[in-house]
Every structure is written in structure tokens, then in C-alpha cells.
């Protein structure tokens, strides 16, 4: 026999030591929250790191981020990292969850304590005080701290007239230590009250150096957009968000370009107020053009035939609010038929401004011969450089119209209305515009063929089985044959013959229904077969009738009435067997 007592004791001691160590380790859990910056500029992004450290962490329930005054949580930007370390020779793990926020209104705020459940126990972080600073204080030079990077929306003028081209630049300011690896202005920037046209932006961004509040910054124009105010008054350009990837130059260089040490930042520009002046009144044809333009008007053809289409083309070429110019209205002679005008424009977005050509084409048709004159017209546009309207004289246009020699003489008849009212008996119909789907009979007719197909299919299968499955065929025909036999039994001339036919019908029916051999089966076998498929009572009744059929020759009180009663009982019995089988 082998002694195992010492070994068991050793295992027990080791187990207790392990369990004890685990419970001790489980108590070394620390939960800490830190904000990447506590003096945050409005619109600037800030990161909250929630670190949970311990030597053994089995389950962590991350906290739900509550609504925080002064900060807006960017819910899609949560990150997670894990680090391992040895503290006093013991392994330790730290889970860090990062949450990004954007600072909102300036003021002093407190980041509340966050509850975290670790291994079923609740821990709480400490509250963090932070300050949201007014970004305008950066330019004034009185900000408590200078941000490493920020963006501004800079229009070339803040006092334009309605329709004047304003170039809005999105400018990034960043310190020399910061390296911007990529930028992406968020799409869908809305400039309410302005018509917006994107300009062609240079792929190579030019960086200049500038002093702001005594701090040297790098200045880069990321993109430029042309905006045209569509109404007068104080209009606000809403903030635009730019997502940038930055890297601190002071840190270790990422020689393999793995993106190490990069940080993603969401930066918001400040809202900008534009005071839009109304246009002064004008005494000429004005179609909303503001800028510097060359305007001309032509007619083609100048010699036309009656019924031929004539095009009057107005071309406006230059720099300014090309997309907003509307068609000038001319005084056409009444005898000309006017058709829908067309317009086309060719916009050039290069050279940091919108320029191009806009063409309006009026289509007219003369229905009679003669000389038609479209009178001289003064066309005005507002020139922002001169702060006044410039007027262009559009000379009169003359169109000579001659009769078409190939046209059939039918004008006079066509232009006379000689349709007489319809009187007398009219053929009346009822209006009915009910949808097909609202008509019940449509659905009924749709179901009908499917139903017919279903019935036909069942009948086809029944027929097929009747012809190919003898047991099924016998079972289906059993009733008809048995009933004929019972009728014959009722009509029999003698009692013996009657009971003989009755017995034969029972044998026929039961053997057909139960697929038993047609001949050579005894009453006992028949009763047992029925007993297997039905109940005791039915089998007993069957036995009684069969016994009577066999012993009728010896029965002293047999009568015709008795036979009829037995036929009725047999019918009931066979129906019962038929149902149960």
C-alpha cells in the first residue's frame, strides 16, 4: 500500500495558499479618472481616461456617461487599452477606457464622480473641476493657457451687400511643436441665409507664421468656400468641425510610420457674424447680379418665317454671384408667342473666387408677318468695388418675319371657335376610380385559380392512389360494396340467406378496411383484427352479430323483424368501425 497522506496535505496547503493569495490580490483595485486638460477652450476636444488597475480583474462594468455640464460627449469615439506591469514582483493589469468630449459654453464646471463595478464591487472616481474658456481670449492674449491647435472661420469681409461674393476660409492655427498629419473638415456645414459654392482648393497647403497674443503660431488655410448672402441683416456662419490627426514633434519619432504617438482631435471654429447690407434701389432691369460683369444680348435669326422659333440670348460673363442671377424680363411685343425660357451656366471655381458665364434664352414665335422690335433695355448690376450700380445698355433687337411659302392656308379656320354645344340625349356613365387593391372581387378572383389548382391536385393524388394502392382502393370502396350487400340481405327471401349475406357483407367490409385476405379468414381472426384497431365494445358487438349469423339455422325465435334490426345494427357497427379505422 502507498502512503499518500503527506502528498494530500501538501496539495491542500498549496490550494489554501493560492485561494488566500487571490482574495488578497482582489483587494488591490484602484479606479481613477483623469481629464487630459482642465482649462479647455470652448469647441476644443478633451479626453477623459478612466483607468482601472489591479492584480486580478475578472469583470468590469463600465459606467454610463451621464450628461455633463460644459461638455458634450462624442459617443462614437470611445477607446480601450490594456497594459501590464510588475509591482513588487507581482503582475498588475490596467484597463484604460478613453472618452472624448467637446467643450461647450465658457464657465467653471465639475466632472461628476463615475461609479464602476469591478468584480461585483462598486468603486467611484473622484470629481474633477475644469474650466471652459472663451476662445476669443486667445486673440486678445489674456487666455490662462494657449491651445496647441485651434481653427477659425475667416471671411474676407464681414460687411457685404446682398449677393456679394464672400470668401470664407477655414484656417488652422497650431504651435511649432505640433505636427498635423491629416485634417478632414466635417461635411454638411450649413451657412443659413447664404448660397454656398465650394472653390477649388490647393492640394499643397501654404503655411505661414504669425504671432497671436504673444505666442507664435503656424497658420494654414485648409479650404475656402464662396458664400453669397441672400438676405440683408445680421447673419451667423455656424461653427464648422475639423477632425485633425496631430503628433507632438518633441516625442520619439515614428520611423516606421506606424502612426505611433498620433492623436485625433475634433476642433470647432467659432461662429462668425456677418452684417449684410441691403442693396440700394435701382432704376433699370436688375436681375440680382453683384460683381463685375460683361453683359450682351443677341437674337437668332434676325430674319424668320411665320411659325419659326426665334431665340433671344442674354449672356452675363464675369466674377460674382453667377449662380444667383435670375433671368432679366424684357418687354416683348404682344404679337409674339412666348415659350418657356431656358438657362445654362458655366462656373469657374479656380483663382479663389467664383466666375463664369450665365446664359438665358427666351424662345418666341411670330404668328404673323411683320417687323418686331424688342426695345432697348438698361441692365444694371451692383459693383461692390465701386459700391454702386453699373448700367449696361442693351440695344434694341429687330426681327423681320415673313410668311412661310410652304405653310398651308389654314390659319383663319384654326383660330375660329365654331364648336357647338352638345344637346339631346347624352350617354351617361358613372365615375369609378377605385384602386384594384380596394376591390374585393379582385382578391377573390386571384384566389380562385389557386384554389382550383389545389382541389385538382388533391383529386389527382386521390385518383392516382386509387389506381395504384390496392389496400387504399379496397378501403375506399368497402362501404359501397358492404352497403349493397346489406340491401341485398334486407331483400333476401329467407332468413338464412339474409343472415348469410349479412355475414358476407361484414367479412367483405372489415377485410377491405383492414386490408385482410379476402378469403380464408375466421370470425375469431376478424374480431381480433377489429379489436386491435377499435375498442372492446365494438369487437364484442361484431362477435355477437357474426355468432348470430353462424347459428341462425338453430335459433328458435328468429324472425324477419330481427333480421332488419340486425341489418340496422350492422350498418351502425360498420360506420363505427369505418370511423375508428
Amino acid at each position, binding site marked *: 500500500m502507498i502512503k499518500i497522506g503527506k502528498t494530500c496535505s501538501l496539495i491542500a496547503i498549496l490550494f489554501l495558499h493560492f485561494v488566500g493569495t487571490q482574495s488578497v490580490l482582489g483587494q488591490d483595485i484602484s479606479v481613477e479618472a483623469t481629464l487630459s486638460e482642465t482649462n479647455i477652450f470652448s469647441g476644443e476636444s478633451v479626453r477623459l481616461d478612466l483607468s482601472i488597475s489591479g492584480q486580478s480583474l475578472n469583470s468590469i462594468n463600465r459606467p454610463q456617461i451621464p450628461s455633463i455640464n460644459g461638455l458634450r460627449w462624442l459617443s462614437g469615439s470611445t477607446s480601450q487599452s490594456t497594459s501590464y506591469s510588475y509591482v513588487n514582483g507581482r503582475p498588475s493589469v490596467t484597463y484604460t477606457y478613453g472618452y472624448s468630449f467637446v467643450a461647450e459654453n465658457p464657465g467653471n464646471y465639475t466632472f461628476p464622480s463615475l461609479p464602476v463595478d469591478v468584480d461585483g464591487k462598486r468603486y467611484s472616481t473622484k470629481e474633477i473641476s475644469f474650466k471652459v474658456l472663451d476662445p476669443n481670449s486667445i486673440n486678445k492674449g489674456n487666455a490662462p493657457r494657449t491651445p496647441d491647435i485651434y481653427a477659425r472661420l475667416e471671411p474676407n469681409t464681414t460687411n457685404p451687400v446682398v449677393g456679394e461674393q464672400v470668401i470664407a476660409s477655414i484656417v488652422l492655427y497650431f504651435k511649432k511643436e505640433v505636427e498635423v498629419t491629416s485634417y478632414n473638415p466635417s461635411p454638411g456645414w450649413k451657412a443659413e441665409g447664404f448660397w454656398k459654392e465650394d472653390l477649388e482648393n490647393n492640394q499643397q497647403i501654404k503655411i505661414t507664421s504669425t504671432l497671436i497674443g504673444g505666442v507664435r503660431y503656424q497658420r494654414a488655410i485648409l479650404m475656402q468656400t464662396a458664400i453669397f448672402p441672400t438676405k440683408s441683416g445680421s447673419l451667423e456662419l455656424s461653427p464648422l468641425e475639423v477632425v485633425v490627426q496631430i503628433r507632438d514633434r518633441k516625442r520619439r519619432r515614428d520611423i516606421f510610420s506606424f502612426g505611433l504617438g498620433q492623436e485625433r482631435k475634433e476642433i470647432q471654429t467659432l461662429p462668425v457674424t456677418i452684417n449684410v447690407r441691403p442693396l440700394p434701389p435701382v432704376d433699370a432691369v436688375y436681375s440680382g447680379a453683384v460683381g463685375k460683369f460683361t453683359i450682351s444680348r443677341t437674337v437668332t435669326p434676325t430674319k424668320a418665317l411665320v411659325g419659326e422659333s426665334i431665340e433671344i440670348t442674354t449672356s452675363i460673363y464675369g466674377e460674382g454671384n453667377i449662380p444667383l442671377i435670375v433671368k432679366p424680363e424684357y418687354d416683348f411685343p404682344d404679337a409674339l*408667342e412666348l*415659350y418657356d425660357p431656358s438657362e445654362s451656366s458655366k462656373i469657374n471655381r479656380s483663382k479663389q473666387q467664383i466666375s463664369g458665364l450665365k446664359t438665358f434664352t427666351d424662345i418666341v414665335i411670330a404668328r404673323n408677318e411683320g417687323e418686331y422690335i424688342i426695345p432697348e433695355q438698361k441692365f444694371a448690376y451692383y459693383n461692390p468695388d465701386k459700391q454702386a450700380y453699373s448700367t449696361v445698355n442693351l440695344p434694341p433687337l429687330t426681327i423681320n418675319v415673313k410668311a412661310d411659302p410652304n405653310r398651308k392656308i389654314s390659319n383663319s379656320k*384654326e383660330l375660329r*371657335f365654331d364648336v*357647338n*354645344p352638345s344637346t339631346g340625349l347624352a*350617354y351617361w356613365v358613372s365615375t369609378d376610380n377605385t384602386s384594384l387593391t380596394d376591390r374585393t372581387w379582385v382578391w377573390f378572383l*386571384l384566389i380562385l385559380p389557386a384554389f382550383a389548382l389545389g382541389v*385538382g391536385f388533391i383529386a389527382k393524388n386521390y385518383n392516382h392512389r386509387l389506381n395504384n394502392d390496392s389496400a387504399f382502393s379496397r378501403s375506399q370502396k368497402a362501404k359501397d360494396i358492404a352497403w349493397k350487400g346489406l340491401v341485398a340481405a334486407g331483400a333476401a327471401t329467407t332468413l338464412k340467406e339474409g343472415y348469410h349475406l349479412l355475414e358476407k357483407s361484414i367479412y367483405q367490409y372489415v377485410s377491405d378496411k383492414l386490408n385482410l385476405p379476402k378469403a380464408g379468414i375466421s370470425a375469431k381472426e376478424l374480431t381480433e383484427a377489429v379489436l386491435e384497431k377499435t375498442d372492446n365494445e365494438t369487437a364484442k358487438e361484431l362477435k355477437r352479430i357474426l355468432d348470430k349469423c353462424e347459428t341462425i339455422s338453430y335459433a328458435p325465435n328468429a324472425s324477419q323483424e330481427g333480421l332488419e334490426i340486425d341489418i340496422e345494427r350492422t350498418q351502425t357497427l360498420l360506420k363505427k368501425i369505418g370511423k375508428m379505422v
Partner: protein
Amino acid sequence: MRALILLSIFWMFSCYAGAQTNAQLKFDEANTLLKEGDYLGALNAYRDIEETGEISGSLFLNMGIVSVEIDSLGLAKYYFLKASDFEATISEANEALTYVDSQFSRKSAILPKLPWDRAISSLIKNVGAVHVFIWGFILMTLSVLIIIVNWFYPLALPKKSILFIFICSLSVLTIFLAFYVDYVDQRYKEGIIIAKEVPVTTQPSEEADILGIAYEGYAITIDTFASEKSEGWYYIRLGNGQFGWIQPKGSKIL
């Protein structure tokens, strides 16, 4: 039972005949007003008949004539177009339409419809979704009958399976076509601008940018499904292919 059925048929026929007689009487009265030169009275009387649901080509033709007399050419075009849907008045209505169209000072450029749209429009106007459906039903019943007969008495036909598939597919496609025709008919309605001019806007709002002006007599197509989303506005397609919103008061749906 038989008596009850006969009585029901008689009652239904009496109602139908009664409605027609009533409409004819009102029509005769309105014609008298037209003859006497009371155009507005005649137009109102014709409108009363139209509201009963009993319509005829003669009714719309006379309404168009009255509209010409009261110098409402957009309305006249609307009624003549309705009259042109009836065989009895098609020639007079077309003649009147030629005249009315020649009187509009502004005309819309017409972008021709695509062949498929033309085919569907023709089916809606000349056949109707109900008739297309009935054809589809007949074809489907026929194909089901052939299949059932073949089950019991196999038919000696060459390429039988292909023939069955062809008939079945044809019937299903015809029924689908009927529902598509019905959908297009219910969704897109033809209309006419009856006001002197109606601004067409980019959005269903009076403050929205104006795309253009639809003048009296312009034919429009109204998307009723899109229009349902903005009460008090129609989403339309102009003859030149432009889409926009108008207020319903200046137009009439055919």
C-alpha cells in the same frame, strides 16, 4: 328566393336608370341656361351633375364651351380634355382644344415621354387596369384548367412543359402589369393649370425658391403620393421635365 333575386335586380336597374334620367333632366336644364346666355348659371348646373358622379362627353364638351365664353381658357382646356376621353365627343373636343391651345400666349416646351411611360399611359387611357386584370385572370384560369385536364387526361402536345410555363408566366405577368398600371394610375394624375400663372417652388412652402412659373393651360403631372406628405401642395412635373411644388388652387386634376 328566385323572386327575391329578380326583385333585387329590378331594384338595382331602377336605381341606375333613375340616376341617368335625373342627370339627363338636369343636363337639359343647363343647356337651356347656356342657350339663354346665362353662362355662369349653366356652368354651375353642369357642375351639379358632375358632382352626382354621372358624367358624359356632352357634359364636359358643354362645360368647355361655357368656359371659353367666360374667357377661362385653362378651365376650357381642362373640360375639353375630359370630353376627348369619350368617343361621342372626341372630334369636337379635339377641334376645340386646337382653338384653345392657339389662344395661350405662353406655351410649355414638351419633353416627350419615354416609350415605357407612353405604353403605360396608353394602357391606362385605352384599356384600364381592371380590363388588364380580367385578361390576366382569364389567362390564369385557362392555364390552371389546362394543367388540371392534363393531370387526368394527359394532353398529347409537343413541348408541353414549355407551353405550360409560357401560359402561366404570361398570366402572372399580365396580372402584375394590371397592378402596376393601377399603381401608376392612382399615383400620377394629369392636370391643367387654370390660373393665369402659378409659381412652381423647390419646396412645399411659400418662402421656398421659385423654380419657374406655370402659365394657364400648361399640362402638368401630379404625383399624388408625394403630394399627400405636404398638405395644401401638389408635387408636379411640368411638360419640360422640371419638378416642383404648386398650390392646388390654380390647377385641376383630370
